């Protein structure tokens, strides 16, 4: 069950990334956001903004410090959705 939820989250992250970068991307939990997707600091904040809307939650910017991979971001979103 956990896997399904996470897969959906990864798909949302892909959608948000495509929206911000304006090109299609192939991502998995292991994808390194900065290195593999060439996402700079501003684009990452914009991707997070899309995800805030997709999940109707707030992602404080300081929580992004520990996010390196798509999996990290998916876990952060899952945590915030549980109210942490």
């Amino acid at each position, binding site marked *: 069950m956990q896997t399904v939820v996470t897969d959906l989250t990864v798909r949302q992250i892909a959608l948000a990334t495509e929206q911000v970068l304006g090109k299609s991307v192939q991502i998995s939990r292991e994808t390194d956001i900065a290195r593999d997707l060439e996402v*700079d*600091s*501003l*684009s990452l*904040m*914009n991707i997070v*903004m899309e995800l*805030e*809307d997709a999940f*109707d*939650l*707030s*992602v*404080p*910017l*300081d929580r992004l410090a520990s996010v390196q991979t798509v999996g990290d971001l998916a876990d952060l979103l899952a945590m915030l959705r549980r109210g942490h």
Partner: protein
Amino acid sequence: MALLDQHLALAEAYKAVREAGADPFNMRFDAVLSPTEARLKGRPVVLLGSNNYLGLTFDEACIDASVEAVQRLGTGTTGSRIANGSFEGHLALEASLARFYGRRHAMVFTTGYQANLGVLSSLVGRGDHLILDADSHASIYDGAKLGSAEVIRFRHNDPDDLYKRLRRLGSAPGERLIVIEGIYSMMGDIAPLREIAAVKREMGAYLLVDEAHSMGVLGERGRGAVEAAGVEADTDFIVGTFSKSLGAIGGYLVSDIENFDVLRVTSRPYMFTASLPPSVIASTSTALARMQAEPGLRARLAHNAQRLFSELNALGFKTGPQPSPIVTAVMPDMATAVTFWNGLLREGVYLNLAVPPATPTNQPLLRSSVSAAHTPQQIDHVVAAFARIGAELGLLLPQAASA
């Protein structure tokens, strides 16, 4: 791996820009001759990227006050006001700023950047929420990072999005501080402050407006975007700088908030840096008085801004949404932007090349800042240069290109 290899990608990109011509991020003028003119490799160049909105850097009264102060009081304060005390000028300038804004309190910082660092890290803390416009200046982001409040961004100049993000916070404990800029420094667009103030009232929050590019520029008395929008009563804090319309360097905060002076011992960027030297305080105080005494400067600035904005739009350049002293032409790609920027320099026009990620839409920008001191002939010269290079690069509207 060498220590700075972490910046290799940026270094390569920078090298590519430099190899295309002059170095846009390391200009070396032979001399700056006036608020609007410098000499570069022996040739005159119009300064169109210096944020010198009122042209007061060479104002005789400002220079005289500065010279008198340096001779009477020395070259520097050699320390923070917490340790070395305040000079009379620091206190007088704070009193003048408070009076100018009709507020109870004012506090002067050593730079505008530090004002945002000091204010944003001190006004809110752990458990509070800082709500920033997505296109905020680096000093706002860095101030947020220095503090410990939770930071949420809303879509640029979008009051509905601000509302949505405040609503999402729901009943979470902690204060909310909304941070807005009067004029945004890259595209020159003005914040919809009336609508933002309405959201603030409805949702319950504090409102801070950074008037770095709008103090002395907007509003009947030059009080900025807040005055122009008629939302002074809704604005709890105003931050600004002395380095643009007032022609020197420094930053400030004004407010009516109770216990204001505690900020002087909570704000690390205020406490742990030397205060402004007497010469800067003196020229700034004089410039503040000149700006208030001469609304004509503001009118001339608005006229010049409107002219450049209209003419660039007529040529077919994509600019910001409304005229303001920051007039920016959006470039389609880096190569065009760098070629265009170098072409302008060859034509004797210096402005700012702004590149992603410092730009809002991932596109490179040619950013102009107009001054009240620009002559009609200088604006003619700039527009002609834009037309010539734009035609060469195929960027103009068909009717403008053939005109």
